[in-house]
């Protein structure tokens, strides 16, 4: 096996997206995200959120990690390295999966795209780039496969929202699509060109809306960004920052690594038991621990909704009553839902509080506010 590390950059260095100047030009405010200076908002995070729900938003996700797995054993290798059965996905299909450690905890959650019989693109979180790559490289030892971290070569632009299809369709320079956009299903990817340069078009996202994620060489990112802006000008497209991305994914009930998912979280606790295929042939990393499952009484992820406007936020504690001395849970993500108008949160609670409709209390900076356990997602688009 070969694993090629694209020279580990110093994690203390501030990193900039290939689209940084586009964000500066658009007046973005920036935030540090896993060492990257990324747009948190351009003008209003609420306006950007509503644009994605109602029209379309344009996101720069170039900080995310792209790891290419290539070689005769690629499919069998991924079945061993990841929790799901990746060998069964079809050419140009995508699958959400988990990278587990030996104790069944989550190193990262990722999306895997099959680009050829023996070639897969694995997309990992920016903050887990090196942990994910290191684990994937180490697991390749007994397989005829190469694992290459190509994160620095790729830019990733997402167009999300009900108008995303029309915008991409109208984008000048996007040619040779392997699949017509109209017939492309959700969680599929296809190859294409943008002004002669290779482009991957995936119908995936992290907003709860229809949309596309576009992978291309970093050198051509600005050209594509600008072409999308032009195509979206009469279709309500606005650049959208990470603040709106977070409220969008929260409403859609999608977990965020470091919040809902951690090295000590079992997928089953996070409601992701279906992602772990303990029935597939052969061993995979984390299998024994996954079969054993989390300890009895381990907390489970639930949705919470509340009345009023005061939102419970990450790390706020959950109590079973107004006067309970000990907390029985903690919020991992929470906000006043821009779409719904009331507070929503994801939280880990003791199993006896996880039943839908259970009334609990959230300690909002010293005041216990009632909340109700509800099913996820909070928001589901009308198809």
């Amino acid at each position: 096996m070969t694993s090629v590390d694209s020279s580990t950059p110093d994690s203390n260095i501030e990193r900039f997206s290939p689209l940084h100047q586009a964000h500066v030009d658009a007046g973005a405010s920036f935030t540090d995200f896993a060492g990257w200076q990324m747009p948190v908002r351009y003008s209003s995070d609420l306006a950007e959120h509503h644009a994605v729900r109602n029209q379309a938003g344009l996101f720069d996700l170039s900080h995310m990690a792209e790891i290419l797995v290539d070689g005769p054993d690629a499919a069998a290798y991924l079945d061993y390295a990841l929790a799901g059965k990746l060998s069964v996905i079809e050419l140009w299909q995508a699958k959400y999966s988990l990278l587990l450690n030996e104790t069944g905890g989550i190193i990262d959650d990722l999306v895997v795209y099959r680009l050829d019989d023996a070639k897969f693109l694995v997309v990992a979180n920016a903050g887990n780039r090196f942990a994910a790559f290191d684990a994937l490289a180490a697991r390749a030892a007994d397989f005829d496969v190469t694992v290459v971290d190509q994160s620095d070569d790729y830019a990733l632009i997402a167009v999300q929202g009900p108008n995303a299809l029309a915008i991409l369709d109208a984008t000048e320079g996007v040619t040779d699509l392997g699949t017509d956009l109209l017939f492309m299903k959700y969680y599929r990817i296809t190859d294409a060109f943008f002004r002669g340069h290779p482009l991957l078009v995936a119908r995936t996202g992290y907003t709860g809306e229809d949309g596309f994620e576009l992978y291309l060489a970093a050198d051509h990112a600005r050209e594509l960004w600008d072409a999308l802006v032009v195509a979206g000008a009469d279709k309500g497209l606005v650049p959208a920052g990470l603040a709106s991305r977070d409220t969008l994914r929260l409403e859609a009930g999608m977990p965020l690594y470091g919040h809902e998912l951690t090295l000590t979280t079992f997928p089953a606790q996070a409601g992701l038991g279906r992602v772990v295929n303990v029935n597939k042939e052969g061993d995979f990393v984390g299998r024994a621990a996954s079969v054993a499952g989390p300890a009895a009484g381990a907390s489970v992820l639930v949705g919470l909704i509340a009345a009023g406007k005061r939102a419970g936020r990450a790390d706020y504690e959950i109590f079973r009553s107004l006067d309970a001395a000990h907390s029985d849970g903690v919020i991992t993500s929470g906000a006043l839902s821009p779409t719904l108008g009331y507070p929503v949160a994801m939280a880990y609670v003791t199993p006896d509080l996880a039943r839908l409709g259970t009334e609990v209390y959230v300690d909002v900076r010293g005041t216990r506010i009632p909340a109700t356990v509800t099913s996820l997602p909070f928001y589901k688009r009308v198809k």
Partner: protein
Amino acid sequence: MTDTSALQYTAEHEWVLVEGSIATVGITAYAAEKLGDVVFVELPEVGSTVAGGTVVGEIESTKSVGELFAPVNGTVTATNDAVVNSPELVNSDPFGEGWLIKVEFDTLPTLLTFAEYSALVGE
């Protein structure tokens, strides 16, 4: 348009407009920008006594929570109902329609000048 150079400031990013014994208090544009879109504002009761330097209210955005500190010792004489009903005023007009509370005081502590506050936020 408020003349922001005529206001006084705190290190907690409030602005203070002093008229006689009444201090009108809001948060600065810098603070509003850092918070993002404000979605909820909680203000003290009219008539309540506040102590300078203590938290008397909260300004919540989708992303985070900001605390409102009383810049002076005194009694709250008015709160801005418009902001409670339309928290976005804090973003759209932080030095005007987005004012938060009025406090009647006896003595005014030393606050920051416009130049000092500008230096603090590096603008």
